[in-house]
């Protein structure tokens, strides 16, 4: 697969199989937009998450549901029209393996418990830290520790 950068003769970065610096810049820009939208829509707010779980405002539900509907319509359009990536590859959305479903039920509930306490899912963690709430460095480090525990315990957990 030739990336845009290769087509226009820009050398690949020195990462083994990684994206070109130009591609990474695109993802960085998209991430910046995403973080800004999360901030501006108050989705990163602990208060908004509490309000959602207390069913005291439709704001978060309407935001999440309209995001899902937009994504679902987009995926249908991509499939029906056979739209390809900018570099001409077929677009692939791999199905998730159900297995016994344990990982989704148990892992999902564990994440939900954390979401309810911290009032932030992973993307807002980064945005909140960036917005200057320095103690979120501890929350992020704790999340990394949780991930590490999962990685170590993974062979013994039901999936």
């Amino acid at each position, binding site marked *: 697969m030739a990336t845009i950068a290769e087509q226009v003769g820009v050398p690949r970065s020195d990462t083994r199989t990684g994206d070109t610096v130009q591609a990474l810049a695109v*993802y960085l820009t998209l991430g910046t937009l995403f973080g800004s939208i999360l901030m501006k829509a108050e989705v990163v707010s602990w*208060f908004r998450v509490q309000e959602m779980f207390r069913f005291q405002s439709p704001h978060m539900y309407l935001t999440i549901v309209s995001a899902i509907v937009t994504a679902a319509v987009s995926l249908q359009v991509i499939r029906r029209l056979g739209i390809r990536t900018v570099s001409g590859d077929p677009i692939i959305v791999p199905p998730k393996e159900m297995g016994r479903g344990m990982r*989704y039920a148990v892992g999902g509930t564990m994440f939900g*418990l954390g979401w309810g*306490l911290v009032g932030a899912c992973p993307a807002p963690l980064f*945005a909140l830290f960036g917005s200057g709430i*320095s103690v979120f460095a501890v929350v992020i480090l704790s999340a990394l520790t949780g*991930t590490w525990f999962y990685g170590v315990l993974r062979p013994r957990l039901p999936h």
Partner: protein
Amino acid sequence: MQAAETLQVLPWYVAGPLIGLFVPVLLLVGNRMFGVSGNLRHMCAATLPTRAEFFRYDWRGVGGWNLAFAVGVLLGGVIVGLLTPDGARVALSPAAVQSLASLGIQDTAGLVPVELFNWQMLFTVRGALTMVGGGLLIGFGTSYAGGCTSGHAITGLADFQLPSLVAVIGFFAGGLFSTWVLLPLLLGAAG
């Protein structure tokens, strides 16, 4: 409360569809599945020496784009944070303000309650359980479930994937339990 003090600029019918568009845009740009929690795994794989199979993969190739995206999310927080006046507050419903006040959360300025999320509170039971305990659950849970709000609730549900529906039901079950049982216990507890 003055209009200048409210944070809300994007209504849901603008923010929601914009968030949803990240799914097709990331696919079109490079066949990437929209999701953020994978970064926790990539960060561990990049920094921690471990024999665990879960962290032994080409994190640059698999996760380089995702890490760049996460750095962007952080930058978005920096930019909007700088543009937001101190003390600005979200336009919470009166019912939520009242519920939080009954839990002892009086100050609804900013994005998180300063009474709970600060460095001193880390050395209290309620602060440590909320921030460290909550963080551990987020990290363990999203890795176990293989996704978070972006990967399962938005990408997975939009693609009608049953595993994502199971995960999202779990997200809400856990969130409701924390909101209605754990937080009131923690905030009511001494220390």
